């Protein structure tokens, strides 16, 4: 007969059972939370996100021939419970900005702040090595509709990340960070919304 550990009492058994059940419930809650908050419905609950979603709704990721639709969370939230939960905690910062920051629901303000948001999003994709894109796309298998697309992805793309070449994917076009000129962007927004020259800089100051 082996000696069973004596510290296992009935109370320890109860504690193990309760703790185990609570642990399972905890992880399930996190999974369910990440699922709920990665949905298009949740993301576009703020009007500011409805504005960035408008171009997305015209994109190939929203209306693909196959009907395999990529929703906000598919691209913007990492895989796995821990990483997804972490992304959502960081996303709390954006909620804070929405509540107490500039009026991002205003189309003009939104458009003026958009480039910084796009650069930040691109940096995130770069940092993650476009991991969320690879959920659906397999680099070695991108045959494409043109002759050399397969070759590009098998050779040129090897030490690059999807986002290096495929930025401006589903949202409003924003130039690359290196060539971005704040002045030109502001003038373009002013023309788009019929604002007097200089108004954009004024709005940005606030």
């Amino acid at each position, binding site marked *: 007969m082996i000696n069973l550990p004596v510290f296992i*009492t009935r*109370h320890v058994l109860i504690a193990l059972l309760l703790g185990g059940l*609570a642990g399972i*419930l*905890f992880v399930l*809650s*996190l999974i*369910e*939370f990440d699922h*709920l*908050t990665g949905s298009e419905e*949740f993301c576009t*609950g*703020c009007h500011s996100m409805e504005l960035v979603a408008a171009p997305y709704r015209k994109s190939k990721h929203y209306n693909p021939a196959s009907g395999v639709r990529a929703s906000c969370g598919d691209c913007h939230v990492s895989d796995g419970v821990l990483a997804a*939960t972490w992304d*959502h*905690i960081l996303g*709390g910062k954006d*909620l804070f900005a*929405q*509540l107490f920051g500039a009026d991002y629901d205003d189309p003009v303000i939104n458009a003026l702040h958009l480039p910084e948001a796009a650069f930040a999003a691109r940096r995130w994709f770069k940092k993650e090595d476009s991991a969320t894109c690879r959920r659906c796309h397999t680099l070695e298998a991108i045959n494409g509709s043109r002759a050399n697309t397969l070759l590009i992805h098998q050779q040129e793309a090897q030490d690059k990340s999807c986002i290096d070449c495929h930025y401006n994917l589903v949202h409003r076009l924003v130039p690359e960070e290196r060539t971005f000129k704040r002045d030109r962007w502001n003038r373009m927004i002013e023309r788009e919304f019929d604002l007097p020259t200089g108004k954009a800089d004024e709005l940005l100051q606030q």
Partner: protein
Amino acid sequence: MKILSLGCKTMREGVIASSIFFLAGILLIVAGSTVVPEMFYMRHVVMLLGLITLLFAPIILISTFLLSVLPGAKEKLEKCEH
């Protein structure tokens, strides 16, 4: 630091506090995704509060545990050990 010296009472308080945070977190998340109206970003605020509350549950429980294995805590906890 009085709070760092864990007695039977503080240990029990820790466990109860952890359970309260656990249940409150789940309730907030469920409420945020179902009944809270889509107004002033209430949904998003409630969901975020729920997540943070939920995450506090294991943090409280683990800190309570760590305090209970701190040197010196053993004698005080002897009375409530089985």
